Each structure stands twice: as structure tokens, then as C-alpha cells.
């Protein structure tokens, strides 16, 4: 793979609150190259959105404490969106990096036509009058598969279905050909039928624009369908990171193994009992000492010297390209995979 387009290094985002410091995103590092899709999975509150909002420079810097780097390797040279001035980052947004959200209604303005909103985004970076903007908006609607685009640019968001609004969001995000697209749960609110339309569209758009894509989701089915690589997040940290097949067929972290065992799947009809992960994630304000997953982990007793309770495991590369944050040795992990049975 060529040089990655985005390099996130030791990114940490914390929010001071009355109850204490919320460590939402904790020492996160990853890269994404153009043409590649990185999926970020994890349960709600694990820090997926906080991490991507930091890359996009969308946190309120008065309430969020941010450290680390998020470097965009632009043709003109690298820029770190964490340390760059707000003006510089604002100019990068839309043009070099764009984001789409779970709830398109909250991101679209109810009183402006779809055409006006897409055209507005285009005219921020392009010389052209309103007419040229509407022409561009029509092209984009057409590209994202909205029939009758010429007529529909004149309509308002409420006249569009949920799936069509998500297409509009994609059109708006892509209008300036960004090199990086972050899609935060883009299909979570949609029916599976519409979800597959949108995933297909995202794949085609990625090819068309040769984008680096970060797809945030909690759905391991969606991940299997679109991702090249996966980062699994738990309690603000990346606990496992690997190529797509490794994650599903050689999962290394007990949390990933647990997730894969706990989901019902349409491709397995025989009524195997789901193996639930007991308990719930820890509070990000008072993270336990040692491994954050320990209270729910069934393997911690295999690690000698009570290490899971005292030492935070590092994100180690156990085999090439496969990182895991766990004290178990590769041999113990192999046994763990087999003993839980359900993972293929």
C-alpha cells in the first residue's frame, strides 16, 4: 500500500466534567490509505465518534482536551488537524476530508432545498454562481442514484425518505471530491434493504473518487461486507486491529472473540445458545487499573501474577499487521479461540 492518507498518532480526547475526567478516546493510533476502508467497531460509548470528530476538528476546544496527531498527507505536504489553526482545519473540511452522520435529518436544514444545500457546500470551494451550483447538485443527486434529480433538487429534506436523505448526505459530503470520508453509523437507522443500497453506493463512490474511508459501526455484518481492515474499540482504546479476515477467523483479543460469539447470525440456523459477554463496560471516569476488559473477561485467570488487574496491556503486534492489547500469549489465545468454540 502507498503512503497512508491519514495517520492518527496517540490521539487522546478527554472531557473534564463535574464527576471527573471522561477519557473518551485514549491513545488511539491508526492509518488509512486512499482506496482503503477501515472499519471502527465497538459498543456505544467506546469512543468511536469522539475519535473521528477529533480528526475532523469538530470538537469544542474549550470543553475537549485533545493531544496527539491526526496527519493528512496532502499533495502540498502533511498537515496535522489537531495542531493546525481552526481556519486551516475549516478549509480542509469538505475539501480534503468529509463526514456523514447517523441521523441525516439533523445535518440537513429543513427550510432550504436539497439543491441549495449541496450547491452551498460546492460553492465554498469552487467559483461558480448559483446556477452552476444547482447544476453540480443535480449531477451529484444523479450520481448517488436519486431518480428525477433535476426535479428533486428543488425539494426539501422532509420530502425525502430516510434512505434518500442518507444519499443526499453522501452527495453533499462528496461534492468537493474529498480524499477522506468518515461515515459514522451511516446505515444504523435504515432498513437492511436500504442499508445494502447505501453500502453499495459508498463502495462505488470510494472507487470513483479513490477515497480513504473510515466506517464507524457496531454491526459486525456490515464490517464483514465492506472493510479491508478493522479497529476494535473498547472503553476508549483500540484493543485489536487487523486485516478483515484475521479479525473474523483469527481474533486475538478476548473482547473480539466475545463479540463474535455473542451475535446471532442468519447463516447459522441451528439454535446454538448465544454466548453472552457478562456484565457491562466500565465507566470512562473511573477506569479500573490494569486491563479495562478484565471484569468481563473469562481468560484473565490464565495470565500469571494477577497481571490483568495491575498492568495495562500494550497494543502489541503479535503477528505482522495484527495488533492486540492483551497479556495472553499467542498460544493461550489459540486455546481461547478453540475453547469458546463458536468462532470458526
Amino acid at each position, binding site marked *: 500500500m502507498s503512503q497512508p492518507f491519514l495517520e492518527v498518532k496517540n490521539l487522546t480526547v478527554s472531557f473534564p466534567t463535574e464527576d471527573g475526567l471522561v477519557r473518551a478516546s485514549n491513545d488511539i493510533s491508526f492509518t488509512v490509505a486512499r482506496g482503503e476502508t477501515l472499519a471502527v467497531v465497538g*459498543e*456505544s460509548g467506546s469512543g468511536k465518534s469522539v475519535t473521528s470528530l477529533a480528526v475532523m476538528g469538530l470538537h469544542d476546544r474549550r470543553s475537549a482536551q485533545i493531544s496527539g496527531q491526526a496527519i493528512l498527507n496532502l499533495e502540498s505536504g502533511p498537515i496535522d488537524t489537531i495542531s493546525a489553526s481552526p481556519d486551516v482545519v475549516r478549509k480542509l473540511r469538505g475539501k480534503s476530508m468529509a463526514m456523514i452522520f447517523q441521523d441525516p435529518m439533523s445535518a440537513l436544514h*429543513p427550510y432550504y432545498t436539497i439543491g441549495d444545500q449541496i450547491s452551498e457546500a460546492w460553492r465554498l470551494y469552487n467559483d461558480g454562481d448559483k446556477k452552476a451550483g444547482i447544476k453540480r447538485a443535480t449531477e451529484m443527486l444523479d450520481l448517488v442514484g436519486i*431518480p428525477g434529480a433535476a426535479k428533486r433538487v428543488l425539494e*426539501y429534506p*422532509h*420530502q425525502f*425518505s*430516510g*434512505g*434518500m436523505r442518507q444519499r443526499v448526505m453522501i452527495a453533499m459530503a462528496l461534492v468537493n471530491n474529498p480524499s477522506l470520508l468518515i461515515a459514522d453509523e451511516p446505515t444504523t437507522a435504515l*432498513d*437492511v*434493504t*436500504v*442499508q*445494502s*443500497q447505501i453500502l*453499495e453506493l459508498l463502495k462505488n463512490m470510494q472507487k470513483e473518487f479513490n477515497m480513504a474511508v473510515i466506517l464507524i459501526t*457496531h*454491526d*459486525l*455484518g*456490515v*464490517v*464483514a*461486507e465492506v472493510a479491508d481492515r478493522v479497529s476494535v474499540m473498547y472503553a476508549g482504546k483500540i484493543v485489536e486491529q487487523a486485516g*478483515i*479476515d484475521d479479525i*473474523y477467523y483469527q481474533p486475538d483479543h478476548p473482547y473480539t472473540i*466475545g*463479540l*463474535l460469539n*455473542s*451475535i*446471532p*447470525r*442468519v*447463516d447459522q*440456523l441451528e*439454535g446454538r*445458545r*448465544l*454466548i*453472552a*459477554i*457478562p456484565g*457491562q463496560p466500565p465507566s470512562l471516569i473511573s477506569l479500573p487499573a490494569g486491563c479495562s476488559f478484565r471484569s468481563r473477561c473469562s481468560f484473565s485467570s490464565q495470565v500469571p501474577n494477577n497481571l490483568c488487574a495491575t498492568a495495562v496491556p500494550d497494543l502489541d503486534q503479535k503477528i505482522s499487521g495484527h495488533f492486540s492489547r492483551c497479556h495472553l500469549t499467542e498460544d493461550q489465545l489459540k486455546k481461547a479461540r478453540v475453547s469458546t468454540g463458536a468462532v*470458526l
Partner: protein
Amino acid sequence: MTEPILKLEGLKKYFESTSGGIFNKKKGIVKAVDGIDLEIMPGQTVGLVGESGCGKTTVGRTVLKLYEPTEGTITFNGQDITHLSAHEMKPIRAQMQMIFQDPYASLNPRHTVGTLIGATFEIQGITPEGGIKQEVERLMERVGLNPEHVNRYPHEFSGGQRQRIGVARAIALKPKLIVADEPVSALDVSIQAQVVNLLDDLQEEFDLSYLFVAHDLSVVQHISDRVVVMYLGKIMEDANKHDLFRAPRHPYTKALLSAVPVPDPKKSRAREKIILQGDLPSPMNPPAGCVFNTRCWKVQEQCRVEVPPLLQIGNVQMGNGHRLACHFPEPA
């Protein structure tokens, strides 16, 4: 032969509705449920699936008489309850309960868990053996909550724990039927499995019947014996889950199943999807003929004019039949 615990015949629920937004209001009739025949046997779990807005919730709420049916009959445990008043429904309510999607919205935030679960007995004027307090603690224990937390308020619990409170309330009166409307949709995957397993266990313990409404076909497949597929207020297909998931015969079911993502990258790459074009038509103005004809990948001229009847082959209630509404079904 055993009698069904629930029998719906020609059930319809229409809403008068204003649609459109701030700019163009339209008045019309939404045919949310448009002629449903369905029998659920004791101890059976019937999953109800379909895209958003197809009428799943409305079926569930009408069954419980939270909505007054527009037409048709509802027979519960041999008794016609279609036109019973709220007062007459009271003893029956104890036997049919509901679990909701949003565990937070369905629990009064000002009451403790103990009060919330205990209220189920008070409303019915029932004193359980050993008293309400003891029974509440037993129920909390049964659904996996710590009975010591009986005086805590809903906001002090996580989403999964709140759903357990909802489950404890639903099973308190030992009902025969539970309508569960998206009971795990709001929960994280790792927590979903805990609640799904709980629902599984309770069914065995109390010989419950579930009408399990959900849009997540993986969850429905796991928990159901039989699955009913709805589209625009009507049943398209109904079969035991093995038949339905292995060999769906209705073009809509086939498309719907093919769209479910499989958490296995190799299988996922090898799979062929049927991607449906367009969106669900408005239920205020459903297509003539087969309601699915505007998106069907097998549509023929006949489909646009003639409504396909829901035909039954074998005995679907008993798990060896199939019901299907299509002029050109896939081969068995």
C-alpha cells in the same frame, strides 16, 4: 388438537392521517394493518419482520387492544376480545403483556424499580404468595438484577438492565403471551445476547408464547420458531424459520434475507444480493394488485392488476406448512 393462544382473522387497523411536512399537508387513510390472519400456538415464538412502517408495531399494539381494531377479530385463549371494553380487558391484560423497544421511555423515572415492578400486582389487585416485596425481589433475581438495587431509579441502570426491568414487569403476572416490540434493538451487541438468552430461558420456564417484532432478521431467526414477513400492512410469507431462511419463496422475503449482512467476510464476498430499487410506497396510497409490485424483481403484468391471495400449503401453525402471497413464487 391444541387451540391457538392467539388468533387474528382479517385484522385491520387504519389511521386517519395528515402526511407531508410543513409545506404540503395531505389528508388520507393509512392502512397500517390491512387484513391479517395469524394463529400463534401455546409456547410458540412467532417473529414478525418487515421494513420500517410496514405495520409490525401496529399489529402488536392492536393485539393488546392498545389500539381499537378497525375490522376483523382477535381471539385470545378461545375468547373473542375484539370489542371488549378497557374494564373487561383488565383480567385479560394480566395474561398478555408487552415489552417495548426503549427501556427508558417505558419506565417512569420518578419511581424506584421496586415500585415499578410491584405496580403490576397492584393494578391487578393481586397479592402474590409471600407478599409483593418478596415477589419483586424474586423477579429481579430471576431476570439477572441485583435485588439489593430494589430502591434504585431507572436512570441508575444501564440500557440492558433497564430492559431486564421491563422483562421482570412483563413476566410478573405469569402471562401466556408476550408481545415484544424490538426488545433488544436499542441494546449493544454484547448486551443483546444477555437479554435474548433471558427471553429464551423464560419461555421454557413459563411455557410462554412470544410475538416477537423486530427488524433485525438475525435476532428474529435466532429466537423464533416461525417467521411472518409483512409488507405494507399485509402478510407476504409465513413459515417455520428453517423453511423460510433456507428457501424463501416470496420474492420480497428473498430480497430481504439477501440484504442481511453476514458476519463472515468470505461468505459475504461470495454472496449474491438482490438489491431492491427504491423505497417502500406510501401506505396511504398502496400500489394496486400485489403491493410489492413496484419493487419486485419478478414482476409481471398480472401482478399490477390482481392481488395475490395468501395461500396456505400444509399446516403452518403446526410448523410444517407455508403461507405465501405471490403469483410467481420461487420453487419450493
